């Protein structure tokens, strides 16, 4: 059986469980906890109970992947860009995938589908792949993800990989769930940590939830393959080793036609996405007025950075929505993020978790942005940025 089990003998009626529950799924009556029909089995009460009264009992899930030990190897879906080159996130995943495969004593396999540019397979091998499964088919152009999903699902049913990793790009986030449902297996989105548990051999996938306020470590114990998506910039790409040797295996084209078609291509003026930016200047309400924008643009120019902003600036019409960083905007992962006049609302912080070095400039030393920053300056944003621009102009001259 599955459910919350309460040991009434132990219960002290302290109501900690009631407080921890987000859905009124547990109530304390007559000094004893009772589960209601609103329980979602989230387990919050189990953690909250100080005396170990509450237990979450999980009925044994029927292992659908019979004989788990026959599923072997780590696969990485290597998405291509418009020019046919693998995205940098593919290399980042190969780097991490190599470590996972080594921990399991398995091979690392790169999946390459569509119209890859010459040399792509070799580049993936140099980044750590032992084998490249190559399906050259012009219909696999990342517009109707069900084509790629059919391909990956069929290959996985035949070749039985233990793990499949995908970049959490727009396309990867469309593809991976469609594979998961076809294979009836688990999928963990936007992982920030991927590790093999040395005792169980399971892939431990850690991801943020509740807008980054809660981290959860997730496993997929009885279904295969174990699948995860990872945002670009989370892992670092390995140095290419051109001496590495690997095998390229050609896969037959897919037997279905795309149903979705592009009627208007991406406009050239849309500019580079801040999601991919290596350097980013992020602006908040603390910059005071729209008149400060030229100064901020000058700073961005000097840093060779893109410009992001918080939600209030988009709502005020100072910048367009594609610049919005945060939970309801874009998640970013730059190497350098200079945050100016941003207080650091939790929804905003959720979007900058992938940034490597955060420098914050704000007049309020108590602003939450400083908790997410490595370096900070407290003072008037305009004065500090003006001085900074002057400094940088001097040093570039």
């Amino acid at each position, binding site marked *: 059986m599955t459910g919350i089990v309460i040991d009434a003998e132990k219960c002290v009626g302290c109501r900690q469980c009631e407080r*921890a529950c987000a859905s009124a799924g547990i109530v304390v009556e007559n000094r004893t906890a009772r589960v209601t029909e609103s329980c979602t089995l989230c387990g919050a009460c189990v953690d909250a109970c100080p005396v170990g009264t509450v237990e979450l009992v999980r009925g044994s899930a029927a292992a659908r992947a019979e004989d788990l030990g026959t599923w072997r190897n780590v696969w990485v879906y290597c998405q291509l860009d418009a020019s046919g080159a693998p995205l940098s996130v593919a290399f980042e995943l190969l780097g991490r995938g190599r470590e996972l495969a080594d921990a399991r004593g398995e091979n690392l396999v790169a999946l390459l589908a569509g119209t890859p540019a010459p040399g792509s397979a070799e580049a993936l091998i140099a980044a750590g792949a032992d084998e490249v499964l190559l399906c050259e088919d012009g219909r696999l152009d990342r517009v109707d993800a069900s084509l790629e999903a059919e391909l990956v699902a069929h290959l996985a049913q035949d070749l039985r990989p233990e793990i499949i990793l995908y970049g959490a790009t*727009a396309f990867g986030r469309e593809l991976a*769930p469609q594979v998961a449902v*076809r294979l009836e297996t688990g999928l963990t989105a936007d992982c920030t940590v991927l590790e093999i548990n040395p005792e169980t051999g399971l892939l431990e996938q850690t991801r943020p939830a509740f807008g980054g306020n809660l981290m959860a470590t997730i*496993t997929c114990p009885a279904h295969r393959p174990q699948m995860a998506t990872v945002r670009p910039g989370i892992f670092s790409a390995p140095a290419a080793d051109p001496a590495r040797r690997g095998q390229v295996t050609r896969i037959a084209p897919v037997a279905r036609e795309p149903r979705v078609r592009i*009627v208007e291509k991406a406009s050239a003026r849309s500019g580079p996405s801040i999601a991919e930016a290596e350097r980013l200047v992020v602006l908040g309400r603390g910059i005071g007025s729209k008149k400060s924008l030229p100064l901020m643009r000058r700073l961005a120019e000097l840093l060779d950075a893109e410009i992001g902003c918080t939600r209030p600036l988009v709502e005020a019409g100072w910048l367009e929505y594609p610049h919005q960083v945060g939970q309801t905007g874009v998640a970013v992962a730059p190497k*350098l993020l200079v945050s100016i006049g941003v207080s650091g609302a939790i929804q905003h912080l959720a979007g900058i978790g992938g940034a490597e070095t955060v420098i914050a400039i704000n007049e309020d030393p108590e602003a939450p942005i400083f908790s997410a920053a490595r370096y900070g300056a407290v003072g008037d944003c305009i004065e500090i940025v003006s001085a900074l621009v002057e400094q940088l102009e001097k040093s570039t001259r």
Partner: protein
Amino acid sequence: MHVVVCIKAVPGSTEVKMDPETHTIVRDGREAVINPFDASALELALELADARRAAGEDCSVTVVSMGIPATERILRDACARGATDALLLSDRAFAGADTLATCHALACGIRALPAADLILCGKMAVDGDTAQIGPELAGAFDLPCVTDVSELVGTGDESIVVRCGSDEGPVAVEAPLPCVLTVAKEAAQLRMPSIAGVRAAEDAPVAVRGAEDVGADPARIGLSGSPTQVVHCFVPDRSGAVRLFDGSAEEQAAALAGIIEEVRS
């Protein structure tokens, strides 16, 4: 035309606090609301229905949710804003579902409705952030899927044209009906309920169905039917030691310029 909109009830705030004494997660004081992305999806459906009806055609909008009994309030509110029908999938057997088990429950619920021409979901939910339900539903029905839809350009009898995000930037795509769309927040802002709507919603028939009613496979729903398991939860420590520079604006700027130089090289 029949449009189905999938809705999730989410906590009114995603704030999570750690109880400093018990070191447990405190989530109290949070009233459930409609996931903001689903609100945009609902508005898109209602606008589509308005346009179809103005052209003299029948168009119904059914809102579907899997949730606890209290979720009925959110579905009733959707009816007050213009949804024609509501289905609440509520059963203790659904509890503890991950996205795959949720997808199975929703798919069974949608199958129990009149055939859908269009299935809309929010692009993601603000509490889970997985953005998986839409594409998983498309996979379950083997329907075409378009994610991150920011604008409905036009619909015909056979197909729909939408503007959406892609890795190469915003594009416009055409998909045949039926299909699944996941909707971005900027696509539309959910209308306020009308007074007549609120009155009508009081009597709106919110159908409540359990797992058996919709023919859900008991091995594929709820906690025990979920392939993924949460083994550990923790509140991330954000109190990383920030190094604050002091002094005049010029002195601070000089220190920051030094750091920037270091990071850049």
